């Protein structure tokens, strides 16, 4: 298992549950030291892919390798080099959070004890987690934190995160992003599954978008930049018709409400500044800008590309 092999290498992966095709020829590669975003709507096959990588599910066809090793046969050896955080963490209800963390990390070969102890204290503080509470009393977000602390306590060559921030507040999301970046800086690879584009945007070098078990788009963030648009909703006092003339403004809708004219439109992210200049001249009384969800992107950019895919699926 030399380091010339990619951290993750999936080719033509198939997996069915009964008559349902969860994966239908998926390709995915994560190079060494890369942080790869793995995007797709619910049910697209992200979790199935990850469970195949973890050797929990057995693929029907295709290859799945971690560091060049077979994910099914070499599972135990490979798991020494990885950390995994599921999207919905369940813990042992009668253990405390601290006990769960220690139990999980002790399943891997241990390093320097004192250093780990300090690291654990630091992670608990950063994630603001009380380790003495029984796991059954934790909220979903706190259970998630337990798994994240356990994962970042291990120094792994590859971190696999399956929607790791579901249930976390934005503050904790930021802490997660920070540690993910730190892992990358230390030379580790990361596979981050998510359906929140902004989260992926913050840390990922490459992005693979999957839909109905196939990768429909794959590339660096720069290459995929054209996909990202933000939604803008504003209430303005002046006539907003000038906005319609800007090329970066899409799908403009205007309506009257008590406070003025309500405008809603989408803007290409690289042109936000320019559009804002125009907007600020319009006597802005209220403004929200939200990054698009992946589902919206799919609907806007893949509507016609995806159709044949789903039809093929149905037949």
């Amino acid at each position: 298992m030399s380091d010339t092999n990619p951290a993750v290498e999936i080719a033509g992966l198939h997996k069915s549950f009964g008559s349902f095709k969860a994966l239908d020829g998926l390709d995915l590669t994560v190079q060494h030291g890369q942080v790869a975003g793995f995007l797709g709507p619910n049910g697209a096959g992200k979790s199935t892919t990850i469970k195949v990588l973890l050797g929990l599910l057995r693929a029907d066809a295709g290859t799945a390798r971690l560091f060049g090793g077979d994910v099914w046969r070499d599972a135990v050896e490979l798991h020494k080099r990885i950390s995994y955080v599921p999207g919905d963490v369940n813990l042992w209800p009668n253990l405390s959070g601290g006990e769960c963390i220690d139990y999980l990390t002790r399943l891997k070969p241990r390093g320097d004890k004192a250093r780990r102890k300090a690291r654990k204290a630091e992670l608990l503080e950063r994630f603001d987690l009380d380790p003495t509470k029984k796991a059954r009393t934790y909220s979903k977000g706190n259970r998630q934190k337990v798994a994240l602390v356990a994962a970042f306590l291990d120094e792994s060559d590859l971190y696999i995160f399956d929607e790791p921030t579901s249930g976390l507040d934005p503050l904790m999301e930021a802490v997660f992003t920070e540690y993910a970046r730190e892992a990358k800086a230390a030379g580790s690879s990361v596979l981050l599954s998510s359906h929140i584009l902004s989260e992926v945007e913050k840390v990922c070098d490459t992005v693979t978008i999957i839909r109905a078990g196939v990768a429909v788009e794959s590339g660096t963030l720069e290459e995929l930049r054209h996909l990202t648009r933000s939604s803008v909703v504003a209430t303005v006092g002046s006539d907003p018709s000038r906005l319609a003339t800007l090329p970066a403004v899409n799908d403009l809708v205007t309506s009257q409400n008590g406070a003025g004219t309500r405008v809603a439109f989408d803007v290409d992210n690289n042109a936000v500044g320019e559009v804002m200049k125009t907007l600020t001249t319009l006597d802005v009384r209220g403004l929200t800008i939200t990054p698009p969800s992946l589902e919206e992107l799919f609907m806007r950019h893949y509507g016609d590309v995806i159709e044949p895919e789903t039809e093929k699926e149905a037949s």
Partner: protein
Amino acid sequence: MSAVAAAAAPRRTALASFTGAGHLIRFMLRRDRIRIAVWTVLIALLYLGSLAPGGEYSVLDDDPEARAGRAATLSSPAMIAMGGPGYGLDDYRRGPAAANELILWVTIALAAMTILQVVRHTRSEEESGRSELMRAGVLGRHAPLAAVIVQVLLTNLIVAVGSTLALAGVGLDPVESAIMAFGIALGALVYGAVALVTSQLSESSGGALGMAFGVLGVTYVARVIGDIQEPHGSALSWLSPIAWVHQTRVFVDTRLWPLGIAVVVAFALLVLAAVLASHRDFGAGMVKVRSGRADASPLLSGPVALAWVRQRTALLWTALGLSAMWFATGTILTEVPNMLEAVGDNPLYDQLLEGSGDEMVRIFAAFIAAYSAFGAGAYAIVMMLRAKAEEDATRAALVLAKPVARLRWLLSGALVAAVGSLVVLFAGIWAMALGGYAAGLDSIGFGDFTGLALAYTPAVLVVLAFTLAVYAWAPRASGLAWALFGWMFLVLMFADMLDLPDWLRGLSPYWWVENTLSDPMPVSHTLGLLGVAVALVLVALVGFRRRDVHG
């Protein structure tokens, strides 16, 4: 509440706290409709099979000798433990026989069904968060409680009507049939009320079930000991809801007032449950959860240690509870020969028990040991199926994503379950021995008791290995383990009644275990059982290596 909110508060009536109960009941009945039908049919079949022409009891009405013979055997402690307090033994026709021998089993079965139903619809729902979803809807505070009460009432009513039809259908007096069937339903409802209380006390459904079944076990033993102490039961018997049904003397000299105790106690328990329910927070138990340690003990390292930490409390209480039960039963071992004398010289008796009072003690002790082995078998199944619970709750995935081989994970669970079930087995049999010694028993040595526990060891391991194999290949078919358990129990209790051929009896691993207090266990049986256990473990390992682990 602020003044604004108070002004806008909706009209509050006593009935409002039950809003939505009707809706819930329909929903519960829908979820349970198959279970209810199966229970009703099974119990009716039990009555039909044993009382209809050709059944176990069918000769009693026409044959005075058969009546006398059967009545004589029913005075032995072992038969009292399996039967009833012995009303109507002087003219032991089908009706008194059904009341004396079947009330116990049907009440226990229905009580178990009711306990499971109550916990499933209350504490399990809360634990899973499903009822939070429902409580947020238009649903009164007491609605879930009221709904589950109505639901178990309806279920037991349906079973009682089915039972009445079956009993009257084979020609028994319809009024007496109804009294027996509804008496049993009332007894079961008392246990349902107990489960409703334990569901408020414990924060986990496992805890609620454990406490309720503990009450069932203790009250069963109280009845056994009480009925053995005195014909027709001593004061101790009257502590048991099962005895209240027996004490109606149905089909013999019927009186209804003992059922009044059941009604009063059930009602008092319901009130207690309602009070507890309105004094606790949603999702919480009466017993608050303490906080734990920030760092795990150095011993908590590896799947074996975790399985042990997860099981030790359950093991402690199971072993303690069952041992207390078997200890109490052991104290009556020495009374067994006296009872033999009380029965007098009966040729059939002598033949059945080969005459000696000593031998009778041995047979009774072996009978209790078999019960203890069933406790160990049930423990083995419950703890082995924890592996399935771990997988369903996605905790298995969390561990298997670490450098932990699948087989290591699976065998860790099996090892701890095996050790635990053997602890339950040995502790039970030793407790019975100590109970016997405390009461002056000297005809059976401690080594002989240990030998009996050893004889059961491979059979208990077969039960465990079977559960392991079923889980490893098809976790969704895990119910098969309980099917085996049910079959084993059927073979122990009813094999002769149903006239089962040996090959069917042999499907029960316990059937191969000799009463080593009387006869040595053939080596071939021990080796055969061990061989089957090893083979099943190997089958399990092959299966678990191949299949998908979910979560």
